[in-house]
């Protein structure tokens, strides 16, 4: 049994997942005292018919919805201010983010702007500077997601906003909305969610409640990711991945990002690679490094990854090794399933070896103080070669 001396956990997110989940939005909005929602999405998502489906879900509710469907791939603060003005001028009283990535960031930061009714958003960027509840915010993901969507974080330009009030009031995961996507997007999002949940499950900030969210997320990803890539019609698998992402975000919001998350973002940003693909490559090595440092929780990862039978028949001192090997095997299976599209090492991702020191230096400047230059470099070098880190 693991019980920390002290812990805090806060998760205001109501999740509604499954068949006809969309149709529950009007009554849930009503419970949030909202009658005039603004749906925020992108042209790409709207073009796939998602807007039509969500509008259909409002039929018979008597609600008139506003739709703004022009969120760009790289929004900026000026754009947020423009959308916020539309929200105010049209007298909306809640935001429904339809999609993922920048759409959710826009919706979250817009919620700060309209709730605080301020222009200088930059003043509220940082950790826990938003201290009052925001307006009703509903999230409807249209792909499996990374976990960021349900988390306490939102990013725009070079600003990161962090507050529990940024977490959605309601997440609606409906199988009709979760469409088959390009393999690389599915792997990138699922590996980000796996990183968030595996790091939440093994980091010092873990607690029994983050464990519950992280456990389910890891289990869903381990059971479904490879199959979803091999079998594009696996609707149930896609729904499980979307649920895993939502849970990973809740776990992440109550722990802290760790070495894999930090390095994955730095490598992705420096070499224009999807961050989740980088996190997938780095995850086994990051977990190995962390288990060398503070070890005992990594062994517990085997239970959600492999199930009771495998966990019970693996001796205690081997569990961490077997769990890490399972993640490496998953990477190999994804490589095979995508015919080499998903790289297994940083070398395969075409990250030059001579740049590893630069990456480590950048990670030191923006990452957790728990890890030093040598720590980052060790993980990077082993992830480049695909060679396990020897246990001390």
């Amino acid at each position: 049994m693991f019980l920390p001396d002290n812990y805090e956990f806060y998760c205001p997110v109501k999740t509604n997942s499954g068949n006809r989940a969309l149709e529950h939005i009007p009554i849930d909005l009503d419970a949030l005292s909202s009658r005039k929602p603004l749906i925020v999405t992108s042209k790409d998502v709207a073009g796939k018919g998602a807007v039509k489906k969500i509008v259909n879900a409002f039929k018979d509710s008597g609600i008139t919805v506003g739709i703004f469907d022009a969120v760009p791939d790289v929004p900026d603060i000026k754009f947020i201010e423009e959308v916020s003005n539309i929200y105010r001028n049209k007298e909306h009283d809640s935001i429904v983010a339809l999609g993922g990535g920048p759409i959710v960031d826009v919706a979250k930061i817009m919620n700060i702007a309209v709730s605080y009714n301020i222009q200088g958003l930059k003043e509220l960027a940082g950790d826990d500077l938003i201290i009052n509840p925001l307006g009703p915010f509903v999230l409807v993901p249209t792909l499996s997601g990374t976990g960021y969507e349900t988390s306490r974080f939102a990013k725009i330009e070079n600003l990161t906003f962090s507050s529990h009030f940024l977490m959605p009031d309601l997440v609606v995961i409906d199988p009709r909305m979760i469409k088959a996507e390009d393999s690389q997007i599915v792997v990138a999002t699922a590996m980000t969610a796996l990183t968030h949940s595996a790091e939440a499950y093994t980091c010092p900030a873990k607690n029994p409640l983050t464990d519950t969210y992280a456990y389910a997320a890891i289990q869903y990803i381990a059971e479904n990711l490879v199959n979803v890539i091999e079998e594009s019609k696996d609707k149930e698998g896609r729904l499980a991945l979307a649920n895993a992402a939502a849970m990973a975000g809740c776990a992440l919001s109550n722990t802290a990002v760790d070495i894999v998350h930090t390095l994955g973002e730095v490598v992705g940003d420096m070499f224009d690679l999807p961050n989740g693909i980088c996190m997938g490559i780095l995850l086994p090595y990051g977990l190995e490094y962390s288990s060398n440092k503070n070890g005992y929780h990594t062994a517990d990862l085997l239970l959600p990854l492999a199930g009771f039978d495998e966990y019970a028949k693996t001796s205690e001192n081997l569990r961490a090794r077997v769990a890490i090997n399972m993640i490496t095997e998953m990477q190999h299976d994804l490589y095979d399933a995508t015919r080499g599209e998903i790289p297994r090492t940083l070398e395969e991702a075409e990250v030059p070896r001579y740049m590893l020191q630069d990456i480590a230096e950048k990670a030191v400047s923006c990452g957790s103080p728990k890890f030093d230059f040598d720590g980052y470099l060790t993980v990077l070098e082993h992830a480049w070669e695909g060679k396990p880190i020897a246990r001390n």
Partner: protein
Amino acid sequence: MADYRKVAAGRKPFKRAYVAVMLWFVGRAIQATARVDKVVKKEFEALPEEFTFSLGVEPGGPHMIVGKNKKGRVKYMGWEPEGKHIDLKMEIKNLEAAILMFTFQESTAIAIARDRMIVDGEVSYACTVVRVLDIVEVYLLPRLIARLAVKRYPLWSFRHKYIGRARIYFRSILGY
């Protein structure tokens, strides 16, 4: 502003009409079953005097209202909840959830378990209503469909089921 538009939510008249007809018929069938089936009769006897409940769809109906009159007889009391004292309100959260229930893709118990209903009133009375609905569905529906709609299909004798079914259909259609 070119990327902004307002869309008024439309309506689903056919689905709403289907659910309205089903509620109307089930309401009359509850009245009939309370006269024919001893278990249902006993369930209603255990409820308070002049107990009335409604089962409907949010927002704005349709509804069915069933209750006990002053003589203790179970009566279907129409589809208008306005102006009636209702002890227990059971509201299906939306029309699509009602369609799942009334096309027997989800049983009443499963619909409640999946948070598709709101219960305003005593939960123990709601449990009674769910048990009554299960029995009514067994009478009204062929075994193949009823097995989907109820928690556990009962082992009834031929006479109990088929004579009971004929009497309930007859009474429901004639409304007594």
